[in-house]
Each structure stands twice: as structure tokens, then as C-alpha cells.
């Protein structure tokens, strides 16, 4: 029997906890672009080396800029069951981030639709959930 590998306690996931749970992004000290999750030493927009990581708290509310619906099961975790809606959204207060849209039928997604980031279980490792934020329709 294959031994089950539990990776939750590995430094990678533990380090990401604050960014993932509290929606802490990184703001480039040079050009001000918002990077999420914050793990960049070099700004992907202007190439400036980040001497210190400037934290920026994201506003969970935003609007859909673009989306796609994936009907084919992906090669990732088995929890990513189709149809999976992937969206890019502009957040109020700054930041354009991509993520999964959940609690929503694929035919109801529209560009400009108000959405909100909520903490959800992304997948499980060794039976333990790994949480991150997903978009949900705001419905207002």
C-alpha cells in the first residue's frame, strides 16, 4: 500500500496562510501594481526588485472583467469538477486577480457582474482542506 503523503505542514502552504486567509497582496514599491499572492521578489509589471514587501489588503468586492467555463476535467485535484468557471475580476480599491467562481450556474455569468471573494475549501490533501478565496456572485 502506498504511503499517504501529507503536505499541509510543509513550509510552502504554511507560509501562504496569511495571504490566502486574510487577502493580503503585495504592492510594487516602484509602479504600484498589485500582485497577489505576494511571492514576487521582482515586480512582474516593471521589473523592479522589491527590497521589502509592501503589504496591501485587498477589498473582497469586485466586478467580472472576463471569464471562461471549463467543461473538461482538469489534470489538477479531483475536487476541481467541471463545469468550472474561471474569472478575472477587478477589485474595488485596486487589484485585478483571477480565480474560480463558485455557487453559480455557468449560464448566468456575465461580464460586469458584481462578485465577492469568500473563503472556500480549494482541495484536500491527506483529508485536510486547503483553503483559499473563491469568487461568489454578489447578487445585489
Amino acid at each position, binding site marked *: 500500500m502506498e504511503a499517504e503523503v501529507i503536505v499541509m505542514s510543509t513550509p510552502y502552504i504554511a507560509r501562504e*496562510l496569511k495571504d490566502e*486567509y*486574510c487577502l493580503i497582496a503585495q504592492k510594487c514599491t516602484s509602479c504600484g501594481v498589485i500582485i497577489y499572492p505576494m511571492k514576487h521578489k521582482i515586480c512582474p509589471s516593471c521589473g523592479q526588485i522589491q527590497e521589502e514587501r509592501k503589504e496591501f489588503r485587498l477589498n473582497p468586492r469586485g466586478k467580472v472583467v472576463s471569464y471562461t467555463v471549463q467543461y473538461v476535467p482538469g489534470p489538477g485535484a*479531483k*475536487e476541481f*469538477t467541471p463545469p468550472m468557471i474561471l474569472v478575472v475580476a477587478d477589485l474595488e480599491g485596486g487589484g485585478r486577480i483571477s480565480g474560480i467562481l*463558485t*455557487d453559480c*450556474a455557468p449560464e448566468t455569468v456575465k461580464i460586469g457582474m458584481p462578485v465577492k471573494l*469568500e*473563503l*472556500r*475549501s*480549494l482541495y*484536500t490533501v491527506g*483529508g*485536510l*482542506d486547503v*483553503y483559499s478565496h*473563491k469568487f*461568489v456572485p454578489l*447578487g*445585489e
Partner: protein
Amino acid sequence: MYRVVIGKEMGTNVHARALGWHKNYKINVPLIPIASSSETQDDSAPRLAWGISIRRIPCRNPRPSKDVIDHDKEDERQQDSEQLLLPRKTPSRFYASPSIQCSLLTQLFYFQLSTDQGNFLGIVMPGIVGAGLHVPTWRIKTEDISKAWGGQSLPGEISVAGLDEDVFTLAVSAAKDALENSNIEPRDVGMVCINTTSQSKFPLAPRVAFALGLETEARVHDFGLSTRGTTQAMLASLDAVSAGSVRSALVIGVEVPIPKPGSSDELSWGAAAGAVVIGKTALVLAVKGCSSHSSAFVERWAIPGTPFQKETAFSRFGRDMGYVDHVCSSTSSLFNRLALKPEALKLAIFQESGSAERAAKTLGIAPDRILRTQSSRFFGDTGSAALLLGLIESADKVRAGDLLLLASYGIGGSDALCLVAEKPEEMGHALGKLRAFCERKIYVDYPSLLRHRKIIGYGS
């Protein structure tokens, strides 16, 4: 000799606690005769003494009489009490602020205090500052469940947690909503109390505190195993706030139930989370008094090695000896303590159950005073969250000054709280959100329900 005379009908316990545990008034009063205009139902003196932290001095109730303000008799009684109660060499330790010393010297009477009056006197009554909730989008019609099992049921629907939702995510969403609605910064919250009877893979409170961005010194408490834990969490938070240990506290009740397929619970248990913020200022609902009743009665227990529960086969026995007995005991004790009459209540919020009306009838509460919630109609019996959702729904049914009863029930007993509405309209936003949750839904079928509850598929 300093005397504190507190009318019993004015809620001795609450005032005594507020007086004794407030950080500015750590006082030790050498003698406490308790005057009361009503016959004392229980031995208030030791409890009051405990509240004001005089633990070494034995106390007893003096003769109860109708003439509370008769000073001659009061003096006689004091001498009487002095002989009875005080050892001669009891040190008179008394360190309070000068204003309080003056008030105590001139004999202090507490009548029904509003929060503002209480603030003026330096006695701050804690209460509920704001509320929030979260309900999953997914619903199943009870007819679909009955169809799967070949039976019949009344029409209705219950909420079901999504595939990516669990007690943790629901608790975080409800808590965020509560903090947003009550305009409280996460750094001001010093305590998080969570109650759930559903399964959790890890202690919830520390992770919720982390996800909300609270200070790492915040106190975290996980209650559980009984739906009554929500009111116990509230009482613990109220005590911590009135003691001055924390500025405000967060109480969360959350349920993602996994009832046994084919059981009657499957038709009624729904998933939801409710949260309230307990604080001292800008109260929405102030707490006037509380009472508890505990026993060893068990009508429902966990089946080892499964997420399911089993309940006694004698449903009437469970209803009468469980719900009705416990709720009536805690509530009537609260009525006695506050010298309240059932007619004085504007609204009674009972723990979700078919027996609520029976308990109300026994207590003498008119049926039109019982809160019939929309949440039970659209989300089902949400267990630990039900009372908190009920509180939110009371927002448009009470006005400032109205009295509310909050009576919980769970395995082990019942807690009853009497609340005074101060600014119930402040909960309007949460109420609007609750109504939006009633409208926003996606139905699932029975196989999907089993998948959502992780009985089949991944994670099972």
C-alpha cells in the same frame, strides 16, 4: 459601615456582576444586606457576594420584606445582620473610585437602569452590538428527499453546504459580516467563541481568529456537542466583556449537519452560520438578565465512528422531558430572578423545535409572541445558528424598550436570556441580507445532496 442595597426584582445578578467585575470597581464591601420587595426565591446573598468578589465573608439574606426604603427597619436589620454575618475582625477593605465611595456611603439603590443611566453611574451593561450571517446557496426540497426514500413529507426546503463549504468557511463569512455590520475593527475583538455540533477537522476558533485578522493574543474558545453551546458562548462573552477583560467578543454559531440518510433529521437539518458581536457601547440589544438549567438528560447521542447521531425512539419523551422541561425551568427561573411576567415580553425566540409552542404555553407566553422565523422555513433547523438568525429576524418586530426572551435548548440543558431592545433597527442590514439569502438559491437533487454532504464521492 457601607451598605449596598439592591432590589432583587432589578436583576441582582447582572448589576452585581457589572459592579464587581468592572475593572474600575474591584471593591470589597464588608456587608451586603439584600433588601427585596418580593419574597426571595433563592439564596441571593452568596451569589451577589460572589459577584462583588467578597468571598471570605459569609452572607445571608436578611428577612425579606415589602418596605425596602424604610431606613429605621433597615438599620435594625443591619445590626441584626452584622451580628449574624460579620466576624469581628473582618478587615474593611474598600478601594473604589471616590465617586463610587460617595454613592455607597449615601446608600446606593439601583432601579431599572437603561444603558445610558448605567454608563452615567459607571456600570456598563454589556449587550449585542451587531449581527451577521451566512447561508449556503444550495437548497434541496424535502419532497426530493422523501421521493428518494419512498415516503411523503410536507413541502419545504433546507439549505445544503456547497462542495467547497464547511463549518470553517461558513463561520468566517458570518463573522466578517457581523464585524462589518457593527463597524468594529478586527483588532478590537479580544475573544472568539464558536459553537457547532457538526464535524470539524480542527479547532475552529483559532483559525477563524486568524482569518479575520484578529490580534494573536485574542482568546479563542471552541464550544460544541450541544446546540445550547451558542448561548453558553454568549454568556461567557458577556461575562468577559463586563469584567473588562476584553473590549468586545465575537460569538458564532455554525452548522453543516450530516444527518443519517433516511432519518427524519434529514428532512429538517439545514446549514447556516450566525454571528453576534458582544460589546459595551452602541448596543443594539442590552442584556437584562440570564438564567440556566442543566441536567444529565440525553435524548440524542453520537454513533461512534460515524458522523451521524441517534435519538431516543420515544419522541414524546424527548420532547416533554427534554425540550419542554428544560426550557421552562431556565425561563421560569429567569422570570423569578427579574420579577418578570410573561406578558411583559414582546417577543420570545425559542430554539428551533416543534415543541416551542408547548413550552410557551406552559410558561404562559401568548402564541402570537413566539417568533416564527423565515430562516426555519427556507433553511431548515439550523441548530447552533438558529437562535442567532432568530435574533436578526427580530430586528423589525421590536422597538426600543421592548423585552425579548432568548431560550436555547441542547443536550445538557437550556439557557434563557432576557434582552432589552435599544436600537433594533441597526440590525436591519443583516435582516436584509437574511431575506436575500432566502431568495438566492440553487436547487440540488438527492444524489447531489449526498455528494455535498460527502457521504458519496470524494472526501467520503
